[in-house]
């Protein structure tokens, strides 16, 4: 009996003394209220909701990232008075949509190194530049800023759009707003539990944003049978023109 108690006490002590990271399976539970956003003809944007719980005191950061794409930023300069694109920098694998919410300001939650490691916060996203050696470091920052500015203007890099709300001490709700011009594809949600500046748990969920119904069938058809699609568009135009022409003659 004594041995069992001792063993039990020892295990409990061991369990409690090991940093919570070892129990990384257990702190956070997170999921989307709805894991797909359906785009139809009258799509004007949509709010999506994420619910989660944590079983320890600490901070939460939830990041929603859209599909990763290569992006080329181009700068105009004047050539004989006319403004044309001259210099360009291509960023590989940047998220096409980015939004996050945190229980406090992120620089108060974790040090920059940790934020950068996990791509938390727009300024902390890793940038992978093609032919990076050819680019001036001062230019590099200008182009990164331009990329962020441009995406923010389209509401696709939206830091203010996301809100986190604690329904009780451990249960939280996050809302993100996806604007009408939101890119289609697979989105990744990463939820971080951070305490004392260290990440103790990460949960990943995925969501799909896609056209549905007629729109998606048209889109699919235009990609798979592009020639017939083109011919059908022309046929539609010819028919419309024919109707109009006939009507005109009777006027």
């Amino acid at each position, binding site marked *: 009996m004594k041995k069992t108690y001792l063993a039990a006490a020892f295990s409990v002590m061991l369990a409690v003394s090991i940093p919570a990271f070892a129990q990384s399976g257990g702190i956070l539970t997170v999921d989307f209220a709805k894991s797909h956003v359906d785009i139809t003809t009258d799509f004007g944007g949509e709010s999506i909701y994420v619910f989660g719980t944590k079983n320890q005191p600490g901070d939460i950061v939830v990041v929603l990232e859209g599909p990763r794409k*290569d992006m080329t*930023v*181009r*700068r105009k300069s004047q050539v004989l008075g*006319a403004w044309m694109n001259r210099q360009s920098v291509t960023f590989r694998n940047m998220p096409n949509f980015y939004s996050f919410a945190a229980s406090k300001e992120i620089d108060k939650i974790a040090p920059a190194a940790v934020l950068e490691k996990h791509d938390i916060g727009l300024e902390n996203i890793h940038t992978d530049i093609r032919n990076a050696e050819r680019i001036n470091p001062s230019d590099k920052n200008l182009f990164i800023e331009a990329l962020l500015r441009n995406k923010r203007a389209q509401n696709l890099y939206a830091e203010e759009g996301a809100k986190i709300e604690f329904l009780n001490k451990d249960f939280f709700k996050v809302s993100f707003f996806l604007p009408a*011009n939101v*890119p289609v594809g697979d989105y990744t949600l990463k939820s971080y539990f951070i305490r004392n500046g260290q990440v103790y748990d990460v949960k990943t969920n995925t969501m799909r944003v896609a056209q549905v119904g007629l729109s998606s069938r048209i889109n699919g058809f235009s990609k798979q049978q592009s020639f017939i699609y*083109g011919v059908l568009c022309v046929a539609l135009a010819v028919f419309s023109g024919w109707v109009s022409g006939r009507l005109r003659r009777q006027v």
Partner: protein
Amino acid sequence: MLIYLPIAEMAVPADTIFVVSAIVGVLSGIFGIGGGFLTTPFLIFSGIPPAIAVGTQSTQLVASSVAAVFGHWSKGNVDVKIGSVMMVGGLVGSILGTFVFMLLESIGQIDFVISVLYIILLGVIGFLMLFETASSFFMKKKAMRSEFNAMRVPTFIAKLPYKMRFPRSKLYISALVPGGIGFIGGLLASVLGIGGGFLLVPAMIYILRMPALLVAGTSLFQMIFTTAIATIMHAVANNTVDVMLALVLIVGGVLGAQIGVSVSKYVRGRVARLMMALIVLGVCVQMIGHLFIEPADLFSIAIW
């Protein structure tokens, strides 16, 4: 009213586009022009990617050209033979134009090239129209016509090979000439999203010396096929023809044209041509402004 476009994968204000397309349609009904040079820049300035604007506007131009060709066809004012030769040139031009477009897009220069080409074309045509209209106010028409007929066909054109007879237009001329004109028309249709009527018509009058009566109908005949090829090419090569946007443009354009045609009886020829010249020059000036005035953000992004 926002509508989400299936191919463009973006939402656009369909009501604004419809209204503008209808207004351009009215102008096309009155002046007998395609209107592509007005609608395409408008679409691009509204934030629609140039590739979608050009590809989809080509579809609308098919509709407006078909509608307009009716009247001319029924009167027999279409020279099918010469139109067909032009079409062959247009086919080659359209295909080449689509590849040129794709190349320019990949190096980020498509906006610039479109602006420059529009400025040159609209500027030249606008001034020619203005000059022609202004001088017709002062010179007697008869004097101009006879002076004109006295001008000889430039010798280098007369020396070109592959001569063909075009009985309807009473011409015996190298097929390369209409073919070349068609080629340029096709090239521009694919790159700029225009029908090219305002180029074809003067070219047919001054270079081919076709009888005035046949010019409008034959140019429309050629435009139908050129814009149709441009549509199919953009659909196949770039997937940039959005059928939903095309529908909005077609319905607006066709309705506008109906109104325009009925109103056209009340607009006197000379005044109409002057107004048209001013509209063309107005768009040209606007594009010059867009090119030479420092943009709000020097940076733009393209996503692959």
